[in-house]
């Protein structure tokens, strides 16, 4: 196994293995980081060698969700992961108490968003074909808590849409094929429309939050985030049960981030 500066511990079994312990100490000695995924605490079937044992859940295998962002396929998989998250979230939202509390115009917005995100998800799955990462598993309890009432539903929707905008805006420069950049461009403006609609709902009659000063800076530029920052922020939501991580970063020069703000 090649040594890296990051060690992801995804299963409790790994903690009992000598190889894991050796790498743990090695990674610490190099000043690297050790990440224990939620699955460590719920037990799972991957022993860290990439081979899933029979009868154990492959959706918790980190090898299957490790992104290689050094090429367009990897960047599109990164987009696919984000679209899977949005699609799963809005699909859960439609039957929720939070949704039931919305007005008819607000329900139209959430229903439209659910359709668009499921279409984006299925589109990426189709164009990536066999190169696509597998379906991501979600933490049902966390998702349920994020659709439980109108306020948390709208705040979470705003965060997801702004995060989507920031992710596409930050990843576009890493795409090398113009047709891929165009597809990303066709989607990001729709995400920006979504973000504006959700923000406008939360704004009441103020009329400025749709493109508020918290997302559009003094140079008139929208949010933007590098993939590493987005993956870390999404992991922090605790909605992903599958361990999505970045194995190889993008090729090129990172720029300073203006990340999606936490909705107040």
């Amino acid at each position, binding site marked *: 196994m090649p040594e890296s500066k990051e060690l992801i511990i995804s299963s409790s079994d790994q903690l009992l293995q000598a190889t894991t312990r050796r790498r743990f100490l090695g990674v610490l000695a190099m000043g690297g980081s050790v990440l224990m995924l939620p699955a460590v605490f719920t037990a799972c079937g991957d022993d860290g060698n990439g081979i899933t044992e029979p009868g154990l859940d492959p959706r918790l295998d980190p090898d299957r969700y490790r992104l290689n962002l050094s090429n367009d396929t990897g960047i599109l998989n990164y987009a696919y992961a984000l679209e899977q998250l949005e699609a799963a979230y809005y699909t859960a939202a439609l039957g929720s108490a939070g949704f039931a509390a919305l007005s008819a115009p607000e329900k139209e917005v959430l229903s439209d968003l659910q359709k668009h995100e499921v279409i984006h998800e299925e589109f990426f799955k189709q164009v990536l074909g066999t190169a696509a990462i597998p379906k991501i598993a979600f933490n049902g309890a966390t998702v349920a808590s994020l659709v439980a009432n109108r306020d948390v539903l709208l705040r979470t929707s705003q965060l997801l849409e702004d995060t989507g*905008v920031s992710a596409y805006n930050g990843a576009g*420069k890493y795409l090398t094929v113009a047709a891929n950049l*165009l597809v990303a461009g066709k989607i990001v403006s729709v995400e920006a429309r979504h973000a504006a609609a959700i923000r406008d709902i939360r704004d009441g009659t103020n009329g400025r939050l749709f493109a508020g000063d918290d997302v559009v800076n003094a*140079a008139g530029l929208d*949010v933007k985030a590098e993939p590493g920052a987005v993956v870390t922020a999404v992991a922090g939501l605790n909605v992903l049960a599958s361990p999505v991580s970045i194995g190889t970063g993008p090729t090129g020069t990172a720029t300073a981030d203006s990340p999606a703000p936490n909705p107040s």
Partner: protein
Amino acid sequence: MNNQPIMDAIDPEILDRLAARKEEIDNGSPARPGIVAALALASVPVALAALSRDVYGQGALPAEIKGVLDFALALEIFEDEFYKAVLGTSAVAAQNAAFATVRPLAAAVPGAVNTLQQIQKHEAAHRATLLATGATNVFNLSGSSFDFTGARGAGNGPFAKATTDLAFLLQVAQGAEDTGVRAYKGQAGILMPNKAILEAALRIHSVEARHAARIRRMRRAAAGASAIVRWSGTVRGGGAPAAGATDLGPQAAMVAAAFEAMYGAGANATNSPNEINVTQAGVNVSTLSGTGFGPEAAQEAFDEPLERADVIKIVQPFFIPMIM
């Protein structure tokens, strides 16, 4: 601000030269206005791009990229001057006077003036950012360069009703924003060789989409609005119907033709499909497995680009000088 990654990737010798040049400018050494503006904006990518050009000479921006910036600047000046005229803050008294009737109608709708101010602020910021990035105002555009009725100076064009009718005004604003979104999308590929400028353009592009979405919601809130104008701010359908216009005014055929151009296909329908398009990267997104939502959601889920010549054809009637 975390600017470590970009600094790491630049040769230390180049950084020293850039830093020395910034110090000279800070201490009063003459520099092009764009560089001073970029430094004042405190945008690291923009400032670095501008300083690099200053240190290494004017030839650094390839003509294709310079051409995109100049074109984008013309569109931003148009939008900025349009909203200033609507708000009554144009430097040109006649432009302010033209919208005197509709202004109080906007002020009567809660949030409407705030929205117009917010949008105008962004268009002005885009104008400054593009200048700082290397764009030139090649058509010498100013507040007096526009005829917002769409008659190239005659003042009696098909969009004159926007000066007296709020619903009509918002239809025009929506069209301008959606055209801006399509225009930036159509130029992105040309910017690929310059990552800093591409990223700035993408970040302007999504701001225009936010604007378009909010204006759609303002229109949908009005009595008698069509459900084609989605509360989600997305574009349903294509061609003139996608504008969701309820009133085409006294020169209806010309307004309908303009909306057709704004939401229809460009001269090259492969490069610039009609907004009704549902084929993306060769995939029919209206029949994907696991969806089954019908064509409308598939049309809404993807926005379409327009090429430069298509955009110029749409906006030329509002510009008094030729911008071909």
